[in-house]
């Protein structure tokens, strides 16, 4: 039998047929929805008089618009209030399970899916959100989609899609101390470019991924789309199965062993062909920080802000635009750049292990005067577990505000926003112009521990020099 990649196996198992335009009609086994990209899709269903075909395959939560500093409804923002109520109404009317705020299971959709055991190897998963690639950490093929495709999934549980090519990205060797999963993905995007992955699924592999926890794998897969790749995945292994076991939607009892056997069979075969292979030496990855206005404009923390004569002709205009927007001086050191806000959270880095890692370092340190620092757990369950471990106290004693679960300042569709041209050290995934809610606000992406170091010193700093234990 021909050796196949995980992508091909999952794709083949879910192919319904070839459509008239040559695309594949692909069955999507799990559909996740949230309040921003689904209401119009439900509206289209009503217009066409269609039902949700497999309501048991769709799960909802609310994350983008949820305020993190108030929980009482109605929310002070009437638009946000209308959106949560609309989702509630749609889930009720179409019989979709909704992890609402009152259930204690609400959170960012890409934190909630894995947490509930909904995300499993060999699945196809889609959500009207580009960071759906997160779920690929489990060896699933997970796509971000638009609202018309949300409609297609609700109505048919299938969507029309062209097959992707597969690029294997191997990161071998050992990461230096103080270098995290976030640095790995920022480094990959820096090297391959923000559109290097267009048309590809990324298969992440090698020593570093073999050793990574599930949450570290999720951080990397999450940002695949920032490198242009709609899908990113890691082959499932014992780490994957151990994470899933015992979760609410995980297979149980006698079903468990069968499931593991099936899951294992989805992993890429030895000797399968890839459309491209990239190898990266883990030892060359520094703590990485973005200086510009897209996630590929990233450098090692000890490097200098690029000058126009250091970049290719192709990058001249983009570099100039980024330097102007970020108000940075070409050729100056990145380290020491003053920040105003520190944001810890998001579907990239808002999980328990992220908070634990920061708390371990932060204990005994204080956020510098004048810096606004907030920590936003990725879900109510993450928050609860963190509180049980006493992490909230470590954060609040250090001067961080401890908030409720949601997307918060990653995209500022809620009260958490930058003001004016504030510069934010952020554990989130996008540094686009205006991304954090102020049209002139500035974002530097980095690992959670680097965010904490920036909060403590008030400047972008190599965390290894701040937290010397």
């Amino acid at each position, binding site marked *: 039998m021909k050796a196949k990649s995980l992508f091909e196996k999952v794709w083949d*198992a*879910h192919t*319904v*047929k070839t*459509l*008239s*335009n*040559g*695309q594949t*009609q692909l*069955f999507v*086994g799990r559909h996740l929805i949230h309040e921003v*990209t689904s*209401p*119009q899709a439900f*509206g289209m269903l009503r217009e*066409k008089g269609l039902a949700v*075909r497999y309501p*048991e*395959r769709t799960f909802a939560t609310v994350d983008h618009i949820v305020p993190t500093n108030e929980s009482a409804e109605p929310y002070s923002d009437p*638009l946000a209030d209308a*959106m949560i109520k609309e989702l509630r109404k749609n889930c009720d009317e179409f019989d979709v399970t909704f992890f609402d705020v009152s259930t204690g299971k609400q959170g960012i959709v890409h934190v909630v899916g894995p947490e509930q055991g909904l995300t*499993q190897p*060999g699945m196809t998963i889609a959500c*009207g*959100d*580009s960071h*759906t690639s997160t779920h690929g950490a489990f060896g699933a093929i997970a796509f*971000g*989609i*638009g*609202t*018309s*495709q949300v409609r*297609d999934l609700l*109505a*048919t*549980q*299938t969507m*029309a*899609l*062209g097959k992707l090519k597969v690029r294997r990205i191997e990161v071998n060797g050992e990461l230096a101390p103080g270098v995290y999963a976030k640095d790995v993905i920022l480094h990959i995007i820096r090297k391959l470019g*923000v*559109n290097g992955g*267009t048309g590809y699924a990324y298969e992440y592999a090698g020593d570093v991924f073999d050793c990574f926890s599930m949450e570290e794998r999720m951080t990397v897969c999450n940002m695949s*789309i*920032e490198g*242009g790749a709609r899908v990113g995945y890691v082959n499932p292994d014992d780490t994957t199965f151990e994470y899933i076991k015992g979760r609410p939607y995980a297979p149980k009892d006698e079903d468990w062993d*069968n*499931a593991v056997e*099936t899951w294992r069979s989805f992993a890429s075969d030895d000797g399968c062909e890839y459309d491209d292979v990239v190898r990266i030496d883990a030892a060359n990855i520094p703590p990485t920080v973005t200086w510009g206005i*897209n996630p590929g404009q990233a450098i090692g923390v000890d490097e200098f802000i690029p000058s126009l004569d250091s970049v290719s002709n192709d990058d001249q*205009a*983009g570099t100039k*635009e980024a330097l102007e927007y970020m108000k940075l001086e070409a050729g100056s050191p990145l380290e020491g750049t003053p920040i105003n806000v520190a944001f810890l959270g998001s579907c990239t880095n808002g999980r328990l292990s992220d908070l634990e890692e920061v708390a371990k370092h932060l204990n005994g340190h204080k956020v510098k005067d004048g810096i606004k620092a907030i920590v936003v757990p990725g879900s109510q369950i993450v928050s609860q577990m963190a509180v049980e471990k006493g992490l909230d106290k470590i954060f609040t004693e250090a001067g961080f505000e401890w908030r409720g679960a949601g997307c918060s300042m990653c*995209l*500022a569709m809620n009260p958490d926003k930058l003001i004016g041209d504030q510069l934010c050290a952020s554990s989130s995934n*996008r540094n*686009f112009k205006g991304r954090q809610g102020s*049209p002139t606000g500035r974002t530097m992406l980095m690992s959670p521990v680097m965010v904490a170091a920036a909060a403590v010193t008030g400047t972008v700093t190599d965390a290894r020099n701040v937290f010397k234990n």
Partner: protein
Amino acid sequence: MALAKINQVTGPAIYVPGDDIDTDRIIPARFMKCVTFDGLGEYLFHDVRFDDQGNKKAHSLNDERFSESSIMLSGKNFGCGSSREHAPQSLYRAGFRAIIAGNFAEIFFGNSINLGIPCVSMEADNRAALAQWIESNAGTEVTVDVDQLQVRAGDLTLSCEMRAGARDSLLNGAWDPLDELLSANQEVDQIAQELAYV
């Protein structure tokens, strides 16, 4: 209902310079606090068009010479970032019916085709020539020919590209796949039963 066959789009064009124009730029997140797409056209490229007092900034989208445009020309990796269909919806509602760029981010491309908005890729030299032509011939019609894979503007005839499947969908009036997806119910049920998970 049969969809229109989209062989070509003709109309005045506008040049919005820049590579890596992301969907947050096309429609900032705060304007997505809505439960329908109505009215999104008004906020297209809002934060590059207006300052924080609501005053117009210097931008081609604020230039009255280009106010009737239905074709947009831009740089590489257009529509990167968020999967929000609000971005092509906003373009459509602002009157845009075709986009020419260096290349397109995957999700944006798919979302646009689903709305019947052709997205054609063009090489840098041709884009530069077209940008210059648009600037010198404001308000004059440009044709994006999906069938011939050409963009025609005055004396210029420039080649462009589009993925075959998407192009066929437009030419055959099958760019919204829902009806075809719905017609395969039996096959879908069979796959659902074969899968090891619910």
